[in-house]
Structure formats: structure tokens, C-alpha cells
């Protein structure tokens, strides 16, 4: 059950230019959080200043139920995330969470591929961790602008996963796009998780359809409420009706959807 809490920042670190990792003390949220869920947060404890106004949705990058903490990794681009980036240990944030339907791990499936691009790598780390815990065979494909933006790279390097990374500037791994790994005949898989720019996820979707496997995608839409009330965050999902699709709420019916059912056309 999602709730609103005023929580303390335990640490904040700039892990790469304009990319921040924040650990937050939020036992009630950590306790209930599932992989693939997100929090909807504001950078202040008092809600007296009205500009910028709205909360910002950010995925859970780590959930530590024992420590009662959650970790997020985010890029400071606009006004809200830039303010978030000014916070220091001890400061407070106001957050709603955990929100959404997270990733599911199908039983009796063994070979998993995870494809993340840019900030889309952030929500995938908890899935990989979980898969490794379950002793699954995991291939992690990640791509970003440069090495610094390959989120959780060091974590993946220490894990029992097959890791392939690409960077646009060639500062690490293959120079090019992460989706190019998919053509690699060596990759076989039963199930795939993906998150990243829409163009990237579309390529992954085509690959999945071509190879007749299934998977899940985590989507991003502009969000108002984070409760399912405002209908601002909808995405097109295939359903069996006249038009063949319906709008679903990314906040509470997502952000994770069956990859084959997502319609990328906005």
C-alpha cells in the first residue's frame, strides 16, 4: 500500500556529471516495495513553495528492507531534479510510494535478458539482483552516452551475470547502441526486461516479436497524481476491443507492462 512519508536523506552523491544517487531512510516504503515500482517525490518537507509545483516520479534502484532504506539514481535535468540534487544528508524529502505494478518473474523460466538504455538502466538493477538471487541465467545489456552513465556498472561487474555494455562515445565497451547486441546470435533468451528511450524499446519489442518470446517494459509518462486519479500518464496498450487498444494508467497499472502489448506511437 502506497503512502506519503516525510523521509530523511541518508546520503547523496554525484556519481557522474549531473547523475545522482540518493539513499533515503524510509522503512515503511522499503518494507512494501517491489522491484519495478517507483516513488513520487518532492524535494522539500514543507509544501509551502509552489514552484516547481509537481512531484517527480523516480524508480527504485535499490530496496534494502533490513536497513529500511531505498536508493534512487536520477539525472538532474530540469528544475525539479536540480533542486533534488541540492539536498544533503539529513535533509528531508516528501515522498509517496511505493507506487505501481512492478516486474514479475515468470516461474519455470531460466534464461533472462535485461536491456537498459540511459536512465532506463536505473529501474532494472533490482530485477537483475532478484534474478541472480533466484539463480537464473542473466544477460545484462546496457548502453549509455559514456562510461559514467552506465548505471550500476560496477555492481553488475561483480555479479554472476553475462554483461555487455555499449557507449555512444566509446569510453567503455562497444561503441554504438545497446540494441545492436540483440543481433548477436549468441543471445538466446526466454524472457526479457527493458527500459529506456522509446526508440530503443521499440527495437527490443520487434526483436522479441521476431523471436517469439515475451517480456516486460517499464514506461515513462508525465505524471500528475501518481494515484490513478488524473489520467495524465496514460499509455496505449493493446487490448481485445474494437480499436485494438486502450489507454492504461502508467502510474498504477504500470509502469511495467507486457512488452508485446505496448503501442509505441506517441
Amino acid at each position, binding site marked *: *500500500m*502506497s*503512502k*506519503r512519508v516525510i523521509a530523511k536523506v541518508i546520503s547523496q552523491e554525484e556519481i557522474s556529471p549531473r547523475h545522482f544517487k540518493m539513499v533515503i531512510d524510509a522503512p515503511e516504503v522499503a518494507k512494501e516495495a517491489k522491484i519495478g515500482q517507483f516513488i513520487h517525490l*518532492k524535494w522539500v518537507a514543507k*509544501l*509551502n513553495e*509552489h*514552484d*516547481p*509545483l*509537481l*512531484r517527480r516520479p523516480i524508480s527504485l534502484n535499490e530496496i534494502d528492507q533490513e536497513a529500511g532504506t531505498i536508493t534512487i539514481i536520477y539525472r538532474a535535468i530540469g528544475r*525539479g531534479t536540480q533542486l533534488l540534487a541540492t539536498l544533503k544528508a539529513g535533509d528531508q524529502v*516528501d515522498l*509517496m510510494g511505493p507506487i505501481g505494478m512492478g516486474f514479475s518473474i515468470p516461474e519455470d523460466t531460466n534464461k533472462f535478458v535485461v536491456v537498459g538504455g540511459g536512465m532506463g538502466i536505473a529501474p532494472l538493477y533490482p530485477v537483475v539482483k532478484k534474478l541472480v538471487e533466484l539463480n537464473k541465467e542473466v544477460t545484462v545489456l546496457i548502453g549509455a552516452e559514456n562510461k559514467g552513465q552506465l548505471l550500476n556498472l560496477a555492481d553488475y561487474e561483480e555479479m554472476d551475470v553475462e554483461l555487455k555494455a555499449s557507449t555512444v562515445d566509446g569510453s567503455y565497451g562497444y561503441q554504438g547502441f545497446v540494441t545492436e547486441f540483440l543481433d548477436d546470435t549468441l543471445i538466446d533468451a526466454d524472457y526479457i526486461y527493458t527500459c529506456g528511450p522509446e526508440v530503443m524499446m521499440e527495437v527490443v519489442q520487434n526483436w522479441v516479436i521476431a523471436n517469439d518470446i515475451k517480456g516486460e517494459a517499464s514506461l515513462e*509518462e*508525465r*505524471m*500528475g*497524481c*501518481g*494515484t*490513478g*486519479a*488524473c*489520467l*495524465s*500518464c*496514460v*499509455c496505449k496498450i493493446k487490448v481485445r476491443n474494437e480499436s485494438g487498444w*486502450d*489507454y492504461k494508467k502508467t502510474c498504477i497499472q504500470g509502469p511495467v507492462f507486457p512488452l508485446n502489448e505496448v503501442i509505441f506511437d*506517441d
Partner: protein
Amino acid sequence: MTKPNLAVDLNGLKLQNPVTTASGTFGFGPEYRNYVDLNRLGGVMVKGTTLNPKLGNPTPRIAETPAGMLNAIGLQNPGVDHFLARILPLIKDYNFKTIVNISGNTVEDYAKLANKLNVEGVDALEINISCPNVKKGGLAFGTQPEMAASVVEAVRAETDMSLITKLSPNVADITSIARAVEEAGTDVISLINTLLGMKIDIHNQEPILANKMGGLSGPAIKPVAVRMVYQVAQAVEVPLIGMGGISNADDAIEFLLAGASAISVGTANFVNPEVTMEILDGIEEYLVEKGYEDINEIVGKAIK
């Protein structure tokens, strides 16, 4: 000290307290059950409902602006039949008054909606006249007194239920619209709906909203809303429900003092999902501190 009376009687529509939630910002109510004790709300204006289901506009549907936001949801809703069959049963037993916000493309649409919603469990209708009238070339019903009145009359003819008419702020003289809908038989007037606005992404050089324009809401519009409530309170006899940017108890009290008998909270629910409860407590504290026994004592107090 005894608790002050918070109940308000809006021309027959009795709310246990003046705090309601604005249409389109609170779903049907249960969306907020994790955050709010729904039974403490005075009323819930459910999402704008139309005769047929509507898919609404493509995304992006919202954009953030200074102390505000734009929305162009495009009235996505499951349609009145689905509402009656599936949603009303889930909400009708809460203590809040269920107020259905209705929208149509023609006067007949509104009449049909009123007719269908004339059922137990629906406590009032809120007539949203900000929708463009497709028959009259897209000019909103709410921008011309005669058009606004014709909608209210058509709905009035269908039902004895409490009618709340919700005014659009995109007009030169809000009082003439208010008087017109009062004469046409509305029991209550609610105001304001959103101001028409737009935001452009300077990098890709196009409007952010897929629909280009959208409705501006949030704290930014509060001064316009307070002014309109203050003007309309002096122009009509029917009670008002004030809204537009209310984000805390002080804002709510500002609207009461300006002449509103009740208030609606919209965008602020997104920022603080618990805000309605804080407002309710804050209003009560204010009354106690200032020594009022009844909320109705402060309605319109700033009008001199």
C-alpha cells in the same frame, strides 16, 4: 471549547463540511483511499462524465508551469452507463456527497446525462459548461450567458436534484454568466474551471501538450479565482463553491471570506495527497482561534 459547526447547506445540498474535491483531480474518490479518510470529505466531484465513453487526448497531457500546471486530458472517462453500473455502487455509501460532473457537446447531451443520473446515490450534478459546443462552432457554452442558461434549463427540466453550475473563467464578465445560470435555475454555482493556457518546448519548438492548449490550474490561478468568487458572491443569491489553486487551509479560508460557502481542492491533491484532511483541520483551527462557532459566520466576510 466546543467544536465549531462545519456543516454547510448549499441551497438544499447538505455537506458535512465545506471541503470537496474538484472534478478530474480526485478520480472517483477511492484512488485516494490510502491517503485520505474519504468519509471525512464534504463532497467528491467525480471525473467529468459524458454520455459515451471517451478516450481523451493523446499524451503528453500535462505540463508544469510556474506554480501551476496545464492539462488537456480531453475528458477521458468510461461513460455514464459504466459509471452507474460499476462505479457508483463503490462510492455511494461513503459519507461524502457524490457529485457527478457532466459534460456534453450539445444541450441534449446534458439533458440525457441528467436524466440517466437521476438515481439514488447521486447527490448532485455539477454542470461543466467549459466544454466547447460543437454545434455552435466550438465556442464554449460557458462564455455566453444565453448558451450557459440553455444548458442549465435543459438539465433542470430533467431533474429535481441539486444542480451546481461550474463556470469557466475565460470570460470578460463572470457576473453576467453567473446571473444567467442563476435565473436558469441552478441551485449552486461552482467556480473556477481552468484558464486556457499553453507551453512551448523551446528545444523541439512545439507545444508540449499533444493538444497544444490546455487548462491552467494550481496556485498560479488563485488570485483570479478569488476575484471571481468575490464578484459573483455579490451578483447572485445562490451559494458558491470556490476553487482554483487552493493548496492549504489559509487558501481555503480566503475563498470562504471571499464569499464561497464551500471549496473544492484540485491540483493540490497531486502535490499533497493528504491536503484535504489538512485543510479540514486547518479550517477548524482557524474558527476556534478566532472564536467562531459556525463556519457560515465567515462566508463572505471580506466583502464590504
